[in-house]
Structure formats: C-alpha cells, structure tokens
C-alpha cells in the first residue's frame, strides 16, 4: 500500500489530479494486457485497475461484462493474471490494483488470495460487491500484506453508511460518479456533493469513476477528486482496435490532456 499512498501524496503535491485506466485482465489477450501495462505510465496513468474476469459481473456494464465473458471462454485462470503482474512488476512504477469480485476472493480463500496478490506485485484490491458488514477479515489481511483495500461510495450513499465504508477502506475510496452502470456518457458527472461529504469525515484519497470518457470529464472530476477512473470507454476502444494495447495507450494519452495543475 505504501506505493498507493506515495502516488496519492505526490498527486496532491503536484495538484494535477491522477488518471486511473481500467483494463479487463487478459482482454483481448494476456499479451495485449501486458503491452498496455508497459505503456500506460508514459501515457499519463498513475494507477491501473486490472479487472479479474468474472462469470456473473453484475456491477459492470455491457462492454466490460462482454469482455469478461470473452476472456473466460478463452480459458484464462486467476493465476494467469498474477503471473502477468509478476512478469512486469519490476518494469513499471505504476500502482497496480486488482478489481475483483468477492466470489473469486472467497473461492481461493481470503488468506491465499491476498498473499498471492501481494507476492505477485499488486498494490491493492477493489472489491465492488463486498458486503460492507463483513469486511473485517479482508481488512486484517490487507493490512498484513500491505495492500490498499477499496470499497465504493455511490451518489445515493448516506453519511452514516459512508462512515462505515471509509473506515473499511485503506489507501483510497472509489466514488461512483453517477448512478447506474459503468459506461460512457455525454454529460460530466456531478460529484462535488459526495466529495464534500467524504472530505468532512476523512482525508482518504478519492478516485471517481463511471461514465468518464473525455479529457474534459477528467478535468472536471479532478477539480474535486484525487483521480479519475476510466473503464468502459477504454475497453470499448480496445474491443474495436486492430492493436488493442496501442489503442489503450493512445486513448489514455488523450485523456491525460485533462490533467493540469490547479
């Protein structure tokens, strides 16, 4: 987690705000994910989220869900993603965070999963479907393995519930920039109200995502949050491209035009 802490500390010092691209792990192939990871830092990313494909991704929109089904049909195993990260860890200083369903963590075993994630070189976990009343075992293991641990706050999350969620997080919290599903949108998200609510009770860095698709969105989100997350828009471009990794890098470079010192 020290790497995640350092990244947000330096983002706050520079005042530029950060960019966090999301890649579906192994989509469309492990080589593409590897090549994208090797180029995203240069393109302006601070942290990359690597989504672990899941057979029943209720939290994701159609673009990411279909990328996950495609990867699973090719037979990709959880261990392949750990090996991938292991193979590039020393080549990049990016923060690398696993976005992973509780089902996958629980089946491998909390202890085993966190241990393997940490030894592979992941810096943290985002668990979008965790029951917030049952985070204690995972928190203890995240602390033990020095992993950030992130849960989500929505536009509809109450102050009382946000307090619970913020206490359960380590490293940063994920703010859903809009209600609904991940997916691209024309309009800029309005996150000021929830950012204020969070800031009043915590100094935890805030990464905001859902529907972010343009440099202008990135700029607007980072007026309030510490970093902007880009998922569906990026995965869609990878789906359509002849060279998916190049498309991911190019789109990230384009979005990074929205990063500027305030």
């Amino acid at each position: 987690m020290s790497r995640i802490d350092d990244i947000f500390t330096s983002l706050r010092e520079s005042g530029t705000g950060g960019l966090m691209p999301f890649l579906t792990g192994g989509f469309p192939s492990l080589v593409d994910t590897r090549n994208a990871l090797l180029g995203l830092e240069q393109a302006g990313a601070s942290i990359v989220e690597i989504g672990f494909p899941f057979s029943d991704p209720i939290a994701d929109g159609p673009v990411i869900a279909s990328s996950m089904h495609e990867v699973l049909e090719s037979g990709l195993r959880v261990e392949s993603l750990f090996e991938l990260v292991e193979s590039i860890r020393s080549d990049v200083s990016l923060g690398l965070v696993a976005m992973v369903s509780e089902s996958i963590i629980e089946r491998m075993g909390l202890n085993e999963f966190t241990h393997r994630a940490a030894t592979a070189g992941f810096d943290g976990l985002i668990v979008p479907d965790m029951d917030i009343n049952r985070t204690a075992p995972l928190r203890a293991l995240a602390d033990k393995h020095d992993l950030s641990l992130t849960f989500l706050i929505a536009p509809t999350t109450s102050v009382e519930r946000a307090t619970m969620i913020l206490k359960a997080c380590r490293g940063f919290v994920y703010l859903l920039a809009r209600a609904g599903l991940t997916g691209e949108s024309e309009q800029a998200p309005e996150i000021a109200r929830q950012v204020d609510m969070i800031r009043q009770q915590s100094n935890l860095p805030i990464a905001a995502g859902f529907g972010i698709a343009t440099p202008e969105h990135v700029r607007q989100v980072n007026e309030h949050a510490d970093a902007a997350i880009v998922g569906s828009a990026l995965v869609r471009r990878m789906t359509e491209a002849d060279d998916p990794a190049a498309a991911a890098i190019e789109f990230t470079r384009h979005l990074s035009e929205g990063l500027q010192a305030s």
Partner: protein
Amino acid sequence: MTSLQTEPDPSGSFGDFGGRYVPETLIAALDQLTDAWKSSRNDPAFQDQFRSLLRNYVGRPTPLTDCPNLTRHIGGASIWLKREDLAHTGAHKINNTIGQVLLARQMGKERIIAETGAGQHGVATATACARFGLPCEVYMGEEDVRRQALNVFRMQLLGAKVHVVKDGSRTLKDATNAAMRDWMGSVDHTHYIIGSVVGPHPFPAMVRDFQSVIGIEARAQCLDMLGKLPDCIVACVGGGSNAAGIFHPFLEDASVEMFGVEAGGRGSQQGDHAATLSHGAPGVLHGSRSYVLQDPDGQTSPVHSCSAGLDYPGVGPEHAAWRDSGRVQYISVTDDEALASFRLLSEQEGIMPALETSHAIAAATSMAANRSSDEVVLVNLSGRGDKDVTEAQRLLESHIPKLD
C-alpha cells in the same frame, strides 16, 4: 439442534448466509425496500389488500388433494398435494408477484422488471403488472426462451416486453445478471421483482414471507382434513421459493420432516446437474452468500436440468442455513426420474405437474414407499405442467405410443 433462526438478523443474514453482496448503487433501494416490507407486515391496510387479492384474484386458498390411486400404486404412506398449480397463472409464483407489486406501488415505483427461467415468474409478474397497470419488462435466457416458448407468448399477451438474454449460459443465471444490470441504471423509478428466495437482503426473507401463505394454509388444511400434521413435506428447490413457502410455517413442528429436492440432471459430474446444496460449497452469487456451484476460480459452473425452473447454480441463503442446521434435508432427483413422475402423476391422478414439481413427486413416491400407511407425505405441487408439454414430448417421444 440449537434453536433455529427463523428471521434474518439486521444485516440480512441467516447465520453465515445471506447479506448484501451488491454494488453500492443498489444499497439505498434495498434499504427503502426493507423499510417498505417491514412496515407492510404490520400494516392492516396492506395485509387486507394482499389477502383480498390472494382470495379473489389468485384463487386462494388452494386445495389440499389426496392421491388415492398413486398411494395405492406406490403402497405405503398416503400422498397429499398442496395444489399451487391451481393458483392463477398455474404456479405459486403469483403469491410473490402480487405482494411485491403492492410494495412497488407503495414506494412509488413506476416500472417493473423481472428475470425468469421457466417463465412462470415472468408470467406471474406480467399478470400482476397488467392488473395494476404497470409497465413490465422480463429478462429471459435464450435457451429458456426456446424451452418455454408458450410462456414467452403468454408474457407478451399480458403486455410485457421480453428481453432475450444471450450472455453466458443463456439461462436463469444470466437473465438474473441482465435484470440486476437494468436495475443498477433504473433503480430510482424501477422495482426489480426477484422471483425466488435469492438475491440481496431483503429479497430472500421477503419472498419467503409472501410465499409462506402456502405453508400456513397447508398446515391448517392438514389439521382440518387429516386431524394431524403431515409426517413429511417434500418440495422441489431451484432458488427455493415454493419450498421456503411451505417449509417455513412448519419449522417449529419438530415432528415434521422436510425434504428439498434438487435437480440431479443426468449425473453428479459438474455441469450435469443443478443440485447446489448436494454438490456445491458456500460462496457468493447474485448478491448473497449461500451454497453455489463454482469452479476452483470462483466462476459459476454450468448447470443442467430438464426443468428450466431448477436450472440454477445458486440457492436461497435460508435453505443453506436449514441445510447446515439439519432442519431440512436436501436430496436430488434425476431428469429421467422426474420425467417418469411427470407421466405417473398424470396417469394416476389426472394431474399434470410442472417438470420442476415432478422432481418433488419422484422423491415423495420413493419416500412414501418406505413409510407405513398411517403416515402422510405432503408434496407442494408448485406448478402445472402445461408449459412443459412440448419439452416433455421431445424428451418422452419414445415412451408414448404412436397413433395409428
């Protein structure tokens, strides 16, 4: 046996099972639903309206029917049926959809969505929506659309829009994902009527609550007609709503044995059955922790059953708790045994059960054979078989004599 927990704790758990493993976007709506459901339980106006609709629209109470021919044929305990097939739309599913539509109206939701496997829940949802003038959209897997074509047409006739789901295994699990995904984006004005005792809290307890009318009636009917409680109760379990509905009111009757019957499909290999409590392990699917059928990576396993309504890799969390406490025993019945019982009940009693229900009939007949004639085996006849005749015709073709 330690004292059995009959209601979830405040976080929506039945011991280790249940809870809310869903994206944060849905939590506020689940809180609102929990409040509406809890206050409805003590709201005389709500309960009067619900009961009146069950009586005058659904046709409750449904009868308790004896099976003189089947009982003689089997030679053992007497077999009785709780006739949910005679409820409006032909299955128990309507009990829940009427209850949830009333709650949706109370919460001011203007649109209803649902998932469906066999199509019975889709039909029951479309029916309740037609009655209350609410727009209804039903998600159904492509494979189930093929197997249950009649129910697709019924839903359309009732004014519902049917979305064909082509992801993953194209069955109930994927239809549920699609409906959840819709709800994530529409939750402010839409209510999602989950059709079984699955999903995040409060769905498992709430759906069981609406279905427990089955067991409440059956218990009173047994005392009235038989002068005693049944010795055992048998019900099929996919997600487990008809079973939860008949079991729950008997939980504290220690003399009553209860059996949930899962789909044994064509064998015990992973992918050949849908017997989650028999072959699965604790895990998370569709918003709650229960038993699930998963591979070693936590990916949901493919499942198989001849019956679309049981073709599901999860099961309600309260069933998981009943299984672990030993209060209910869970067994499985194969496709072939279910199909044989589909014919048997039709021939012996003139009652054609749904293929789902046929699993319970198969288990009940083998249980009755090993019991004395003064014992009573009660089966929840959860639905009628009309929807299954095309699929049964395909599967049974060689067994039925050709016409000259």
